[in-house]
């Protein structure tokens, strides 16, 4: 794992409980933004594909622990969202905001549908019209709005954190200093 990937994952893991707190305090659960899923997409976008998968899983697990219901459902969903974001990044122009928005939309959609399916398979049935109207569509729209600021914040903080990471090269040490 290079310092950049490590920093991105560390920043995302630090931000995750904070994001959940913000969601809980300042936004309605239904119809509000899914910041944690947005973070998973950011991690997928900024990290190597094989690090994005476990990082997304841990982010989802944090949500599962906070929610304390159906442990693992969001972990799998966010792992897949991060993975999809990493795949999309490798195919599209990584510097374009539109590419990030497409990744966010796709990742959020995949995460929501996977969660819905897992919950249904566990006997927790959420009516399709309600899921589409009140869960998926607001999340998808929020993801489009959030991905830009989230990506910027995570990238900036990760760059700052990467300077703290030990580096073997002289350049790296100089950067750290």
């Amino acid at each position: 794992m290079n310092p950049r990937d490590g920093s991105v994952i560390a920043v995302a893991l630090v931000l995750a409980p904070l994001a959940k707190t913000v969601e809980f305090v300042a936004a309605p659960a239904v119809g509000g933004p899914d910041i944690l899923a947005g973070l998973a997409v950011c991690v997928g976008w900024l990290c190597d594909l094989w690090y994005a998968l476990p990082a997304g899983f841990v982010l989802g697990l944090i949500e599962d622990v906070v929610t304390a219901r159906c442990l693992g459902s969001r972990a799998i969903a966010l792992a897949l969202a991060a993975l999809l974001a990493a795949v999309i990044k490798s195919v599209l122009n990584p510097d374009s905001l539109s590419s990030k928005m497409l990744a966010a939309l796709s990742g959020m959609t995949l995460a929501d549908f996977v969660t819905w399916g897992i919950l249904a398979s566990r006997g927790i049935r959420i009516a399709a019209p309600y899921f589409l109207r009140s869960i998926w569509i607001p999340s998808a729209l929020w993801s489009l709005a959030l991905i830009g600021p989230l990506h910027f914040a995570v990238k900036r903080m990760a760059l700052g954190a990467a300077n703290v990471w030990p580096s073997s090269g002289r350049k790296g040490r100089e950067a750290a200093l």
Partner: protein
Amino acid sequence: MRRRFQYKKIIVLAVLVAASVTLMNVTGKPQDGPSFWGSLFLKASKPVSSAYSAIVGRFESLRVAFADKEALIRKNEELEAALGQLRVLESRLQEVEAENERLRDLLGFQENAPGDYLVAEVYGRDPSKWFSSISIAAGTEQGVVPDAAVVCQAGLVGRVLSVGTNVSTVLLLTDPESGVGAVVQRSRDLGVVLGGGGQDSLTARFFSKDADVQVGDLIITSGMGSKFPEGLLIGEVVSVRIPQPGLVKEAIVRPSVDFEHLEEVMVVGR
């Protein structure tokens, strides 16, 4: 010649004095109103004097304002502070009035319904978009036990899912994991009311496809399963359907409780 010239001087002087005296007499006379020339002068000078007065008045008020600026600023700050305090007081008063009204309603419900009730404040909601639960400020110390029914004056809210020392989590009727034994109040047909359809929609699934249920029927708890007391209002039927031929009848029920605006609830004692 010189003497003659002196006479002329005296005559001119006398004429001037006489004219002056005459003029003084004429103008010094008391009159009923201003003279013609006076009136004309007054009329002509009125706009000018008005404008002058206005300008001078403005300058005077500006001078006073600048002179008292500090005092005015201080006064303004005092008034704004007083206004802010009044607004806070007004807001608190409204809040207390609303709380008083809600508690009166709860008290009325408590007096009319059998059993022991514990009033608890709602202080949090489920942080997940997938589930519907609330946190209440009452736990084992207050006598809350798992699976206890939770109600408000409008009807059934849900049941206690987990209990802490001073806090508990209540599973709302609208949660996808919620299921309540129910009965149509009019026809007494039995069924089960399930969540998962959002905050304003429940699904009542009846045990018989011939169940007598109509739009507008009230759905209440059946008391079966021992989790919920019998007769608590769940909601009103808004539509009826049979999903597939030969299967059970379903009804969409609008919950009687406004789950978005719960502030106090009552935990039913066991």
